[in-house]
């Protein structure tokens, strides 16, 4: 199916709506962050499955190798992956995983109608409000916990507390 010009314009509008929440409410930030973190963590997950394949000697190994072979192969890969740039990437992944988890719990609760509160009369004069107070609190908790997770990962990966 070939997209017409009007259609492709609407694709870019949707993409812009998805990715640029600046100037809108926190609801929109929550929506965008949930999607962006989801995509990035999924890409990380694919790489992580590939990378952990090196525990047993890499992608070519479909038999049980000797422990010495697996260990020496792993040490080589570890030397390659253990560097400040990859560690910094893991800190960002840590932030994203923690945010996506807690904000995802908020969405799961909302799916089953929990934390949404009673429906209220719509006031045409005030801006739309879709977060209940509980939902808003969980969103900010997810930001806070994600930041804690990032700080914790900095210590776990770089060892800043070891002195």
């Amino acid at each position, binding site marked *: 199916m070939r997209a017409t010009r009007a259609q492709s314009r609407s694709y870019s509008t949707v993409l812009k709506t998805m990715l640029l929440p600046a100037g809108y409410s926190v609801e929109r930030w929550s929506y965008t962050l949930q999607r962006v973190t*989801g995509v990035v963590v*999924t890409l990380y997950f694919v790489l992580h499955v590939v990378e*952990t*394949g090196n525990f047993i000697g890499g992608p070519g190994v479909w038999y049980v190798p000797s422990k010495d072979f697996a260990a020496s192969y792993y040490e080589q890969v570890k030397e390659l992956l253990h560097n400040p740039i990859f560690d910094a990437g893991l800190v960002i992944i840590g932030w994203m995983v923690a945010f996506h988890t807690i904000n*995802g719990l908020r*969405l799961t609760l909302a799916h089953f109608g929990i934390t949404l509160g009673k429906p209220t009369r719509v006031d045409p004069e005030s801006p739309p409000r879709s977060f209940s107070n509980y939902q808003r609190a969980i969103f900010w908790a997810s930001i806070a916990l994600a930041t804690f997770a990032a700080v914790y990962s900095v210590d776990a990966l770089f060892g800043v507390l070891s002195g």
Partner: protein
Amino acid sequence: MREKNVMLLHYLSGVGILIFGGIHLFTVFFTRPLGETVWETTLLFEGHQFAILEVYRNMLLASSLWFLLLFTTFHGLNGLRVILIELFPNRAVRSATRYVLLFLGFALMVYGTRTIVIAHMIR
């Protein structure tokens, strides 16, 4: 499968990831002594209570990794599908997406399962 049920599975697999991912992160990050990095402890090949080979040799931990693989594969790829449907609401993209993601999911499961089973058997 109806979209309603797929989304229910999406939420359930999310809760599954919370449980099994919690176990995974616990063994990697919370069993190290404070002041030592994961690189010096849990990411050793051997020689720590939760070093790589120790985790894979343990039947319960290895199985929990497999469930984490299963849930994350489904949850991640279904998430991509949902985003792509929102972006391109037409049938051709939807059908192409479905087959590409099914193939990718199958490949991830095969490769990940290989790693877990073989690492469990290394002596």
